[in-house]
């Protein structure tokens, strides 16, 4: 690995304009959230909206920051190999560094540069979100998803019918929560209904007029969660896996660090593709193609079991959604890291192959 080349590529992948641009947009997104006075002016009743304002601000900042970071990342990553063919080959090719080392160092630098962007977003979104939370809007314990359960398809409960889901007998801490996804459905007397959700330690009844979560404390050490349709309308329990168990989380930075890891993998995926394609075509086209490939993959995989394995796919959306709810995202799973590694390998192979005919007369390897 050629360290000076790595540092140079890192600076080129995340130049000052990208750092300032991402920081500026993230700040603007989080600073533009309406405050208590404005929300009260919109609607005097909604203390809940005020309470959730910090989480919403954080998720908006993440989305805005990542959109800009993605654009900067593909553009600057695709420009790095383009420079080889413009003027830098004159000194790189005769420097005594092997072509593989050049590609390796530049790619590593590009990934390092791209990784600084989610760190900046996380620092801003996390610190400002927490600063807001320290006010009267502070919430309870941070939760993370522990388990999904239930049938793979939606089904309807008619008035009086009951659905039970047994939770496995494993360690559920005292503060764990369980929730069931429901919605009103056609087929019975009324257009809306009521639902009673019951665990061993708590029960709760809710009028269901739209999609909603029925949430109660999870039974300690496992047990049964029961949902009963107590109204006059039909109640749909929305699958797949309508039952979610959430346990207390010890994630650092209210989960922003985990989200930063998801975002870093997404940007690494894009950077590696743009870098590899940039060795074969102009930087503008390479950047656009990298984004198009990612978007195409995301759309193609959306309804398959692999949707969670694409960096920047369903897992990133779920992680941002968790932050918006004031909960912690899950840790990065191996398939996601594997997909990002595959993209890095593809980027390396593409770039390395493009140098096959490059200045053979002066190369040293």
């Amino acid at each position, binding site marked *: 690995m050629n360290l000076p080349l790595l540092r140079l590529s890192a600076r080129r992948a995340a130049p000052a304009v990208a750092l300032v641009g991402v920081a500026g947009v993230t700040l*603007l997104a989080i600073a*533009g959230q*309406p405050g208590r006075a404005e929300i009260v002016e*919109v*609607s005097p009743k909604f203390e809940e*909206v005020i309470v959730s304002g910090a989480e*919403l601000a954080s998720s*908006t900042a993440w989305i805005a920051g990542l959109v800009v970071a993605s654009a900067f990342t593909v553009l600057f990553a695709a420009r790095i190999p383009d420079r080889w063919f413009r003027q830098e080959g004159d000194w790189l090719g005769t420097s005594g560094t092997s072509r593989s080392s050049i590609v390796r160092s530049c790619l590593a630098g590009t990934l390092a540069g791209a990784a600084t962007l989610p760190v900046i977003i996380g620092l801003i979104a996390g610190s400002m979100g927490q600063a807001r939370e320290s006010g009267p809007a502070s919430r309870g314990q941070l939760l993370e998803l522990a388990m999904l359960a239930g049938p793979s398809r939606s089904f309807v409960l008619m008035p009086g019918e009951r659905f039970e889901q047994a939770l496995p007998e494993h360690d559920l801490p005292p503060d764990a929560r369980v929730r069931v996804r429901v919605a009103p459905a056609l087929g019975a007397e009324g257009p809306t209904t009521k639902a009673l959700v019951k665990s061993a330690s708590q029960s709760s009844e809710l009028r269901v007029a*739209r999609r909603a979560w029925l949430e109660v404390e999870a039974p300690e050490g496992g047990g049964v969660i029961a949902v009963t349709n107590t109204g006059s309308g039909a109640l749909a329990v929305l699958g797949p896996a309508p039952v979610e168990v959430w346990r207390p989380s010890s994630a650092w930075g209210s989960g922003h660090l985990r989200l930063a890891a998801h975002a870093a993998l997404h940007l690494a995926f894009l950077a590696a593709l743009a870098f590899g394609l940039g060795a074969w075509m102009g930087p503008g086209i390479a950047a656009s193609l990298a984004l198009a490939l990612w978007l195409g993959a995301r759309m193609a995989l959306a309804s398959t079991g692999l949707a969670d394995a694409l960096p920047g796919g369903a897992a990133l959306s779920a992680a941002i959604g968790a932050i918006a709810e004031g909960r912690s995202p899950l840790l990065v799973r191996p398939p996601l890291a594997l997909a990002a590694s595959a993209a890095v390998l593809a980027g390396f192979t593409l770039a390395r192959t493009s140098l096959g005919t490059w200045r053979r007369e002066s190369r040293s390897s």
Partner: protein
Amino acid sequence: MGARSVRLLLAGSAAVTLALSAASPLSAPELEGRRRMGPVQRLLGPIASAAASVEWARYVGALDAGDVTRAYGHAARALSLDSRAAAGWLTLADHFIFIRASPLEEADPAARRRWIREGFAVLRSGELRAASPGVLARYAATIKAAYLSNVPDEGLGWPGGPRALLNEARVDLERAAALGAREVEVALAYIEERERELTDQGR
């Protein structure tokens, strides 16, 4: 002029432009709504409206997902980004009055009245900020006169009944006319007709 000087000049111009954009506008009676705009809205200028559209799309998405708290957060954000557009205030007020106050969602008349008042509070807030406040005042009057005054008493139980609603609608219409709304006379004629109907019915 060297490249460094050009960059400094550009950076300086950008900083001055941003500072001027974020500053409060000059005082003038017709700029009352603009004075209530937040610094981010002034800073974003025309982009603020596009950003508000994104927030309205997220509002709809959150409502579809059943997360009303998050939906109202998005709505508040959209309204703070583009407070001049009357359509945003109308959208949120409609949601409170026609969806949340629907008998399908709230069986209790008192709860329904609370949501309806919430909707009218939104419209009043909009009157202080929107570019066409008269439209919002006229809309409040229309809902009271043409919709709520026709809802059976046992379903809503509005204090004072339909007559009180028609009186409130008349006050709203007078305010709408003062704020520059058009076609107020048609609505006033409708209110008078409704009052005659109520008299005929002995209510």
